[in-house]
């Protein structure tokens, strides 16, 4: 049995497979299938300072090898999360990562401050949600935006800080470098790619929000490329995600430079996928006589 433990920004994970934000709620629903302690960690549904209603339906559209969503950060607000969801979540025996979003740097800061006084293990700064008019992706598509919000939060955040990057940028490695120099302890990527579908009969976009975020296997090669580019550029750990559906995908993303992976869309077709990925990685490491899963990180041999 290989060692699957990893350490990111001082936080110990029992394995490198983490549930991705927005696909796993606050964990309750998936705890029906298996103990959440089987996971390396959980990134909670994006949390904002005040509760948000989310976008009108339809919010979901299936696409070739993927899907679009425009949920729009529906969440009960940070106070509700701290009071109602976090105590239970912390008892599940896994790393709890709070994903936070906001309209302004001040919103992010106040949310991060509130969470700094809790038992949350890490904060994931969501500067990459494509589904809200404000608060999200406008901070993640320019170096200036990423720098501004990351450095502001860094000043008040007393938890390890991971910045979640958008692929909707012309040079993601530049954004990554800006977040690193602004004080990020780790990076996670990629959030969804902005996409759109139109019903040719009604001439209406399939999503009520018109556009949405593309995820699933369709984006996986983009994720591999971006993780590779970013991990070569920065010194802080990179958590890779984007269409990871199998242990082979997880191994590939780690070889590209990821220290861990997040798993999201595949949960909708197979809620047990994270456990299968952990088991598959373990077998792969044993068969290749690799003692420690971290040995995979960044070991791609580029041409």
């Amino acid at each position, binding site marked *: 049995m290989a060692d699957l433990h990893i350490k990111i920004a001082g936080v110990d994970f029992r394995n490198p497979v983490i549930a991705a934000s927005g*696909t796993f709620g606050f964990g309750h629903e998936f705890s*029906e299938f298996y103990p959440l302690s089987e996971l390396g960690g959980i990134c909670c549904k994006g949390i904002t300072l005040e509760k948000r*209603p989310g976008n009108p*339906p339809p919010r979901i559209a299936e696409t070739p090898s*993927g899907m679009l969503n425009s949920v729009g950060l529906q969440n009960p607000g940070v106070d509700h999360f701290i009071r109602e969801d976090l105590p239970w979540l912390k008892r599940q025996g896994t790393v709890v990562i709070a994903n936070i979003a906001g309209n302004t740097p001040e919103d992010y800061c106040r949310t991060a401050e509130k969470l700094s006084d809790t038992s949350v293990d890490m904060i994931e700064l969501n500067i990459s949600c494509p589904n809200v008019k404000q608060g999200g992706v406008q901070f993640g598509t320019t170096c200036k935006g990423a720098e501004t919000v990351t450095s502001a939060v860094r000043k008040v955040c007393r938890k390890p800080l991971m910045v979640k990057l958008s692929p909707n940028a012309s040079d993601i490695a530049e954004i990554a470098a800006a977040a690193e120099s602004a004080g990020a302890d780790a990076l996670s990527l990629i959030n969804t790619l902005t996409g759109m579908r139109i019903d040719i009969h009604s001439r209406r976009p399939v999503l009520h929000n018109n556009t949405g975020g593309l995820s699933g296997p369709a984006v996986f090669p983009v994720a591999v490329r971006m993780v590779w580019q970013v991990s070569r550029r920065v010194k802080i750990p990179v958590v890779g995600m984007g269409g990871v559906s199998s242990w082979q995908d997880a191994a590939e993303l780690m070889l590209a430079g990821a220290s861990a992976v997040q798993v999201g869309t595949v949960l909708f077709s197979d809620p047990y996928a994270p456990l299968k990925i952990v088991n598959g990685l373990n077998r792969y490491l044993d068969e290749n006589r690799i003692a420690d899963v971290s040995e995979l990180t960044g070991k791609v041999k580029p041409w």
Partner: protein
Amino acid sequence: MKLSSEWGKSALKKYDVRNCTILKKTEAAEGIFDITVEAGALAGAARAGQFAQIYVPGKTLRRPLSICEIGRADRTLRFVFQVRGEGTAVLARLRKGETLNILAPLGNGFQPGDTSRRALFIGGGIGVPPLLEAAKPFGPNAVLAAGFRSRSAVILEDDFNAAGCRVRIATDDGSLGHRGLVTDLANDLAFDVIFACGPKPMLRAVSLLAEKRGVPCQVSLEERMACGIGACLGCAVRLRGESGEHYGHVCKDGPVFDSRNVVWEA
């Protein structure tokens, strides 16, 4: 799935994933398929009006199908579904003996309440199947008012008759029963409660009917869905609550709602 800790030995799970063998498959009407699967413990846990998420090989999302009938003794689930796109077309090609990977039972289901009440079941087209299991305990106290495009699209008439329910049919083209809207069938009926499933405009009309007659009404809704268990918040539906309007979710808060709580958008 091998777990590193003990799990699942105590309480029954609310829902789970299972590979189910197809025991029976027929084409109920053109493009409408009727599949019964061996579902083990999932059948034992299921209630009328709940649904299942069916895995479609090669597709990113499962397909939500309402449960039409629950076989308690032989631990089966029956699904009657219409081919609407690629995913359901794949499901329609499956044959007896093959397996269907099912996540079930999901959602809240109908609340039948006192089955000595006179119950009106209103179904539109492929909205009829989830009403069958709910109507059974009402037997002769139930009337099914079912609307279809035409005679060739009629499904489940025999099943409701066999359950002792009375059946009234409306068709758009008048090829069977009343020509016109399914809600017209209720005009000369007396009833204490309504259960309905069908297209949104029909459900809106049914909701108005319930209001006019002053009877409670449970409606089963559908929405584009991803996880099916309430985690992804994809299948939003506008609801009216004590603290104003908000988005609930068809998969977890529904699929069955009190019609008064649904915000019917024009």
